[in-house]
């Protein structure tokens, strides 16, 4: 694997490899000293053109636990304010001799473009979320968390609920869940679904109450109010009434079924505050596993392959 740009690029073997490797990094995280020297002398840059708490911290923690040096690029305090183009910024970072760039950008396709620019220099690029396109490490950590609770995703039924239209998490997760053999149902009002679902390996429902008893996992998406430029739901209260996971709805779920949310949560909108804390919720597990999954990805991109010994 050269870059991690999209789940669509990965086959089932690579995803399984990440999952297996993550087991090792979860163990590293449980040690007295949760740090290994694996990426000593390597430099990882986080290049975030969009705000983020957990993804950026998670990547930086992952890189530091692997002993890599971490540079943080935040747009607010950089030459981007003076009008520097993305290409010039990337070239500047590349010229400093970094090994990997973790990119988040509001526009779909930016990580792939960055990967093309740095291809010759051997820098690895990881997509940390691009527009409404993909967020591959989120999908990988969700798959890992589900595996932890459900054993395997094969044959599992997963409902993805909410603002699918603006969600890169949904796109990556549909691809990942499907590759691993799960059945995905999207549950949302028509206004929050993409205009066309042709080619999507999903079923669609508009009735959350009817779906909840049937699923092994329910994945709640954040209402992305910052991306919703038009009135897609009459009001947040009405959205919650129809599609929010309230305490009453959570009781409709089968025993052992789990609740996921990529964060940040709008408590009281897509998920009730008490539901987020209930035993079926694996939301904090997702965050904890996120560090281990990102360590696995950084390891695969920066360390797993060797130099002179060819894997012929």
């Amino acid at each position, binding site marked *: 694997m050269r870059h991690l740009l999209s789940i669509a690029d990965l086959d089932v073997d690579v995803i399984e490899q990440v999952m297996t490797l993550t087991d*090792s990094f979860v163990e590293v995280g449980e040690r*007295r000293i*949760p740090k290994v*020297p694996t990426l000593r002398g390597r430099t990882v840059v986080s290049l975030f053109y969009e705000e983020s708490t957990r993804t950026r911290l998670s990547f930086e923690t992952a890189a530091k636990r692997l002993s890599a040096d971490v540079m943080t690029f935040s747009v607010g305090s950089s030459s981007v304010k003076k009008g520097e183009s993305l290409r010039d910024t990337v070239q500047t970072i590349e010229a400093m001799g970094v090994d990997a760039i973790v990119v988040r950008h509001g526009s779909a396709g930016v990580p792939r473009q960055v990967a093309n620019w740095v291809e010759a220099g051997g820098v690895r690029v990881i997509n940390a979320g691009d527009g409404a396109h993909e967020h591959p490490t989120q999908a990988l950590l969700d798959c890992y968390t589900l595996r932890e609770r459900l054993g395997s995703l094969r044959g599992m039924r997963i409902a993805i609920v909410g603002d699918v239209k603006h969600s890169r998490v949904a796109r990556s997760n549909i691809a990942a869940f499907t590759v691993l053999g799960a059945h995905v149902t999207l549950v949302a009002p028509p206004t929050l679904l993409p205009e066309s679902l042709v080619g999507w390996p999903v079923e669609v429902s508009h009735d959350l109450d009817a779906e909840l008893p049937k699923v092994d996992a329910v994945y709640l998406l954040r209402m992305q109010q910052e991306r919703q430029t038009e009135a897609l739901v009459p009001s947040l209260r009405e959205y919650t009434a129809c599609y929010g996971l309230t305490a009453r709805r959570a009781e409709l779920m089968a025993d052992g079924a789990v609740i996921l949310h990529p964060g940040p949560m709008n408590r009281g909108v897509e998920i009730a505050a008490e539901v987020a804390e209930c035993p079926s919720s694996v939301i904090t597990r997702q965050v904890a596993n996120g560090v281990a999954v990102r360590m696995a990805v950084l390891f695969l991109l920066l*360390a*797993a392959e*060797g*130099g002179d*010994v060819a894997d012929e």
Partner: protein
Amino acid sequence: MAERERRITPPYGGVFVPRTRVMDADAVTRAVTRIAHEVIERNAGLAEVVVVGLQTGGVRLAHRLVEAFERIDGSQVPFGTLDVALYRDDIGLRPVMPEAVTAIPGDLNQKVVVLVDDVLFTGRTIRAALDALTAYGRPRAVQLAVMVDRGHRELPIRPDYVGKNLPTRRDEAVDVTDDGVELGDMVRERR
């Protein structure tokens, strides 16, 4: 033969072809029993001993050593496994991949850790293992038990307990199983 060994020994990804059987199954069993007695003698018992097998070749031997302790002394010695891939000094030079999840039983502070591996060669795996152990505490002592010491050390590391000293050429390969120890060569797989 560990998968890693197979991949990184010329001709890279070949198969092990045995030439000479150096120890048979009984000899391996006797060596494990003798090493168990030596560990007990040297540490005046097993009170603080923790056995740690190195992935992948050392795990089976470590397990047998624990069984031998139970037979001889009646005590249940804590047993762990350690994968040193993340600590290797050839990361970036050769393919590296953890092969199993490390499992260390509890805190190693003040314990006597007996590291177990099948073959001691350059000593680099042991160097990595010593580094890895520091993440689990500060053992009072670390001792090394190997079934075969084949020479060619590249670091100042020596074993405390040895099943057999076996002079080898660098390009030979050694395979340790329950059935015995074989000396042979890595050969490119013919189709």
